[in-house]
């Protein structure tokens, strides 16, 4: 257990020591989105009755920031260690692959949650928020964050240079998060793209999360959980399998 705690603590300190780039910067980005979109669209768009556009946007932005940063934490930590070679410091000790997995995954989840909470707090300066079902909010935050923390680990282990990682970020993570209903309800999309959105797990993450705030959403939160929870399980198993086999870490 000491091994796990030490690695977890190291992973937390790694981003905590550069708080400005790892936490403050993503919160500022979300703040800019809020500033612009709430100013431009508040008067024109209403997705759910009684819910202003800024309020509607908030859960999406919080979740998007949470997911992107959970991914960024585990993936950048691993690729940096691989490229600078200091990954040996965690490969030489008798850490089990489960300890390794939990430490990286939970630290990434913590960063996601800290930033998500930060965005939410900033958002409260713009609009009032309802909190209809806090348990759903928490459940979707944890399970969805787990998925992206794991995907970050998979990408970090797989990537051999920063380019590879940037590729995943730009061509998978960004489209999946942007095309998930962060800024709109998918009901406002043409039928075809509505159908496509249903294959995007991030859509269920954001929709379920939003349900927790307003008590209304595009799909039933249980259906969302039935999609997101198995995704979290599958991505965890994939990560564990990679660590156990030593894929790209132990040659």
């Amino acid at each position, binding site marked *: 257990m000491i091994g796990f705690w030490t690695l977890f603590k190291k992973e937390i300190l790694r981003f905590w020591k550069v708080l400005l780039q790892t936490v403050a910067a993503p919160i500022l980005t979300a703040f800019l989105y809020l500033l612009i979109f709430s100013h431009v669209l508040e008067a024109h768009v209403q997705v759910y009755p009684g819910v202003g556009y800024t309020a509607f946007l908030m859960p999406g932005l919080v979740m998007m920031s949470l997911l992107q940063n959970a991914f960024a934490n585990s993936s950048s930590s691993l690729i940096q260690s691989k490229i*600078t070679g200091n990954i040996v410091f965690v490969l030489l000790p008798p850490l089990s692959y489960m300890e390794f997995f939990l430490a990286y995954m939970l630290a990434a989840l913590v960063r996601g949650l800290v930033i998500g909470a930060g965005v939410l707090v900033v958002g409260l300066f713009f609009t009032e928020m309802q909190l209809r079902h806090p348990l759903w909010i928490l459940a979707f935050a944890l399970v969805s964050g787990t998925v992206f923390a794991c995907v970050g680990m998979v990408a970090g282990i797989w990537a051999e240079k920063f380019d590879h990682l940037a590729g995943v970020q730009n061509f998978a993570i960004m489209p999946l998060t942007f095309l998930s209903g962060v800024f709109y309800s998918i009901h406002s999309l043409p039928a075809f793209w509505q159908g496509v959105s249903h294959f995007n797990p991030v859509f269920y993450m954001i929709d379920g999360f939003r349900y927790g705030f307003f008590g209304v959403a595009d799909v039933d939160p249980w259906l969302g959980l039935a999609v997101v929870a198995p995704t979290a399980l599958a991505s965890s198993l994939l990560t564990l399998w990679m660590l156990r086999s030593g894929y790209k870490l132990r*040659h």
Partner: protein
Amino acid sequence: MIPAVSIRGLEKVFPRVQALRGVDLEIGQGEFFALLGPNGAGKTTLISILAGLARATAGKAEVMGHDVVRDYRQARRQLGVVPQELVFDPFFTVREALLFQAGYFGLRRDDAWIDELLAHLGLTDKADTNMRRLSGGMKRRVLVAQALVHRPPVIVLDEPTAGVDVELRQSLWAFIRQLNAQGHTILLTTHYLEEAQTLCQRVAMLKEGRIVALDSTANLLRARYERRLELELEGDLPAFLQPRLKGREGARYLLDLPDYADLEGILAGLRQAGVGVRDLSVGQPDLEDVFIKVMREAAP
């Protein structure tokens, strides 16, 4: 007694190259052992397999009786590795790096031991300095400290003195010798053969993934070293010495001298022939010469 390191039939095939072709090796507890070989001979691959950084294609390796794959947690606790590359974590100070390393090995905070390590390696006043700000030599010392933080009985040093200044080299070896005297087993790879010669009791030479020489340093020098007598003469080389002639440069002759006892006869013969000796020296046994000879003779 369980050997410190036991390797049997070890093979490692990389996609484009076979790094190890069936290596058998046993290193006893308390030995100071050198693993020598040219670049690409498989030294680092062998160490990586011992440390769990690489996986063998065939064969098995044990550290203090623990299989490095099946019983990896025990095997890794017994082993401290100083890697060849100068790696460091730029986010942390020297002390933090050592505390983390101890924690990864499941050890509770032990500042006394860390302070002792820092003192031995001349790092005390750098304890709270960020790793980024250290010179190369200082970073190397931290790597040594990191490898020792869990007090491993077996210590592997992969070219620890590459690019290290003389002073650090001396103090590093004094410290490693002290650890060896306390019972730690030392496995060393190096390109500086005079280091291996003065430090190590036993030597293995590796070429293209195979062990081509394995013996005590003394035996290797005795069996493989060709002693030379260098003479500067006041006249021509007498005929009776012609069969020994190995080289000549002006009045300086290089003669074969397999046995010190021959020296007396040679000098007596020279006196009889009336040839004066201006200068004389006998070459000292040198592991570097043995190494070159072994590498040349070893079948590919």
